[in-house]
């Protein structure tokens, strides 16, 4: 488990991360979402031990990370622009990382290279940006560390590749208990990958929740009530986060389970009602609006 407590980091008197506290549980895919400059990379660099926090703590399986080799053995950090040795190829990088990470699986690495159509002898300098990200991910996956920290690594990957990586993550999570932490400025990139999401804004955490929890506890209901009284009856005692009206058609975002919606609406007279699935985007819009932010401006642009 990665525990981040009151983490603060400034660069030249500018606060990049301000009192962030997040817990990243093992065996989940944690998405760290935020605008450019929100502090995602800084948080990841502090988790990976590259940066020393000004204050606060980062522990990885109860070990401080900064300047701690034992903790670093458990993580693999892929920066937003991963560095590869000049004039090197995939083999050279494997040679380096397999010497550093004791569980590095060379056979698996070359297998993955083949499946991703990456030439092990080709100079990395000639790779496209996406190919470099794939290579960095494969190196990280094959290092078989418990945690893999990806900074904007999925941005720019095509859907097929993303799906491929997602499958590998799933397999690694199952087989080796991998915990990927993925930072991105794009909510849609993470929607199909993450289990848990932390939203960073201006260096602080706006929210940190399980996606499943958010999905299960937020319902979007579309309905036409027979009378106004029926509407009041249906909504009484419900936490309505959002309400829209188009003629007699009502749309509500309500914090409750699907079962609770069904039970309540079964007791009122409706002309029509249905419970619709919420996209991650809609969930974030609802959740952040509650705390006073306009998520569209923050992430969705």
């Amino acid at each position, binding site marked *: 488990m990665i525990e981040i407590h009151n983490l603060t980091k400034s*660069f*030249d008197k500018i606060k990049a991360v301000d009192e962030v506290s997040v817990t990243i549980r093992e065996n989940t895919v944690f998405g760290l979402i935020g605008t450019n400059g929100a502090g995602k990379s800084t948080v990841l*660099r502090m988790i*990976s*031990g*590259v*940066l*020393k926090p000004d204050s606060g703590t980062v522990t990885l399986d109860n070990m401080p990370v900064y*300047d701690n*080799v*034992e903790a*670093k*053995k458990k*993580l*693999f*950090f892929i*920066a937003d*622009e*991963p*560095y590869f*040795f*000049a004039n090197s190829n995939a083999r*050279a990088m494997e*040679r*380096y*990382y397999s*010497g*550093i*990470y*004791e569980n590095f699986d060379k056979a698996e690495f070359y297998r993955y290279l083949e499946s991703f159509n990456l030439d092990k002898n080709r100079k990395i300098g000639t790779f496209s940006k996406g190919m470099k990200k794939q290579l960095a991910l494969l190196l990280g996956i094959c290092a078989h560390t418990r945690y893999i920290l990806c900074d904007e690594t999925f941005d720019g990957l095509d859907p097929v590749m993303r799906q491929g990586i997602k499958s590998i993550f799933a397999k690694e999570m199952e087989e080796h208990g991998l915990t990927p932490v993925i930072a991105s400025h794009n909510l849609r990139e993470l929607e199909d990958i993450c289990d848990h999401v932390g939203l960073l804004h201006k260096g602080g955490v706006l929210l940190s929740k399980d996606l499943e929890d958010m999905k299960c506890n937020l319902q979007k209901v579309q309905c036409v009530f027979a009378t106004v009284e029926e509407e009041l009856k249906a909504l009484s005692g419900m936490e309505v986060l959002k309400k829209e009206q188009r003629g007699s058609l009502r749309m509500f975002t309500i914090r409750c389970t699907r079962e609770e919606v069904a039970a309540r609406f079964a007791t009122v007279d409706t002309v029509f009602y249905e419970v619709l699935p919420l996209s991650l985007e809609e969930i974030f819009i609802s959740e952040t609006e509650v705390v006073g932010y306009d998520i569209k401006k923050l992430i969705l642009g």
Partner: protein
Amino acid sequence: MTSRNSFWVSSVENHRRRVWVWIITALVQVTAYVGILTVYLSRIRKWYEEGAYITAEEFREALYQAAQEALGFQKDRLILVVGLAFLIGIQGFSYLYDQKKVDMYHSVPVDKNKRFLVIYGNGIIIYLATTLASLLISVISAVVQGAVNGEVMAGIGVAFVWNFLFFLIMYHTAILAVMLTGNRFITLFASGTFALYEMMLYILLENMQESFFDTKDSFYLSLRPKLSAVADYLYHEHEIRDLENVREMAAMALPFYGKWFVLAAVILAAAWMCYRGRLSEAAGKAIAFPRLEPVVKVLIVIPVSIGLGMWVYGAGYGDTTLAFVTMIAGGVICSAVMEVIYDFDLKSMFRHLISSGITLAGIVIIFFIFKEDIFGYDKYVPKEDKVESVALVLNEYPEFWDENFGYVDISEAAAERMYITYLEPVLSLALKAQQEKPEEMEDARVMHVLYRLRSGREVGRKFYIDFGNPANAKLLDQIIGTTEYKEGTYQIMTDQESFDRVQEMTYSNGAVEIALPAEDGQKIREAYIKDMEQYDFTLIRNNRPCGEISIRFPNWRGYSLYVYESFENTIAYLKERKAYYPVTLDPGDIDSITVTNYHNELQEVYGDTSDIYDTRDGNASAYSYDESRVVSETFYEEEEFAKILPVIYPNNMSAIWHDYEETDSNYDVYITFRKDTSYPYDRGSYGFNYQFYTGEVPEFVDAATAYED
């Protein structure tokens, strides 16, 4: 297991990343050793084969010497070693400049200390491997060519250790610079600054002292950096190189080995501490530790600005206002430049005005400390009870040599040999000198004094003494008359051995030059030392030498003994050898005397006469000559000779203790001897130049050489 593995993996990987450094270092070292040796030896061979008149033994010695010069101590190696140390040191840790590399290197499970050790150790390996391989090839080549013996090998070894320790200091300096900066160019600048800072400060300090302090004297002691390895290399490498044998070389190099080893260790410790404390986000910044920015700014801008001002001072003929304005302007500009460099942003020019203000205040304070002599540098005269002894060099700079007839500077000789303990006259003259300006003195002469204080400190000062002031004569007698002064100034007084190896001796009265037997060296010395008992200021100021004994020793060392008419023992010896001829010539020996009157009073003076205050009548070069106003007249009559000869003095005879104005530079007197005279003058010469004593030119000469328009 893993960590050891990762250590070697990191080490090997690090070498892979440094292949180009390996190649450059190897090329440089092969050229510096193998290449230079080949050139040197082939030059000697060619010289020998083309028929040089040397024996086989001399040829072999020449080969040994060439090998020693090529592979041993060599001044030019300083640049190479500094260049390689900076290259290897900066390249090794250059990943710290790049955030992408830092992200990778600092996130992988490699111990920070081990990473430092790997990079540091690999740098040493690169230097040592390439140097030793080049040396090995060179030595094999030299052995094959018969250019190496045990002595040469040992000399190469001593030089290798010297250069390796120097490399370590420069290498560590470069690493420290990397740790303190975040950008390649700034690191290079910082490395150079670290390497030269102390030396530059001392040069600047010495320059300011010389510019602003009248009594500043670098005669005995010059300001030498205490810690700078570059200064040690520059000032001492040639001294070691010039030594006769390896044992002496090693003995002289050994203290530097110790000092440099400690210095290298201290710099390395500082570099390592900075490495430990350096944060990853320093990558790409000018200064890695922001708190150091104002300190670095002050430490750089103050000396640079003052240096600029002093340069203008030197170029502007001592204009202090201009120098001060330049310093202030330099301070403002350099402070702004430093801020721009810190932020890589022109808009930052006037940031951190407090540190800029401190910098300017520092410049002003330092300038006025020197300009106004706030700490009384020129007023310094130690209390008598604080001084153990003094050495001094007054007015003349006789030649000294060592037991191998190698040149020894008078300053070194006086500092080593002269211990005057009767201090009162020296200190009195020093105090008097503070009351008088040299340009107001009648006959100002410089005295270089070395005070040896009881505290163990030595202080050198120079001041002017008025030889024309009779009140000073007694004090000068009390100095010049002492055995300590004579023994410290004239080598003849203490050096008996050299006089067994006299190669040539002559006596001259200004016109004759009589050879004396070389084997009479000790005899002359004995006589002369006896006569020197009467030697004091009064004697030499009131009397001119009546002759001069020139002695030549091995290695072209030479010496002149001035003979005064009261030197009975010396003159008795000369008479015994029939070598003595009075300085005043006999009219019967003269064929003609030609007097040239330059009529300085009619010549036009050019330039600023205030700068030539003592040359108006003394130095004809101050005049723009109109040849038509120069009048010459030749006299042939013996009675004319009789009036002229007593009032002239030979030009080539030293009169350094006398006022320049004692002889009249308005006239040249040219004497031609009779062909039938028995006078043993040098017949190869056309004539002999003399000068009239001032105010004693006979009237008939004046009349005959008068200018008529």
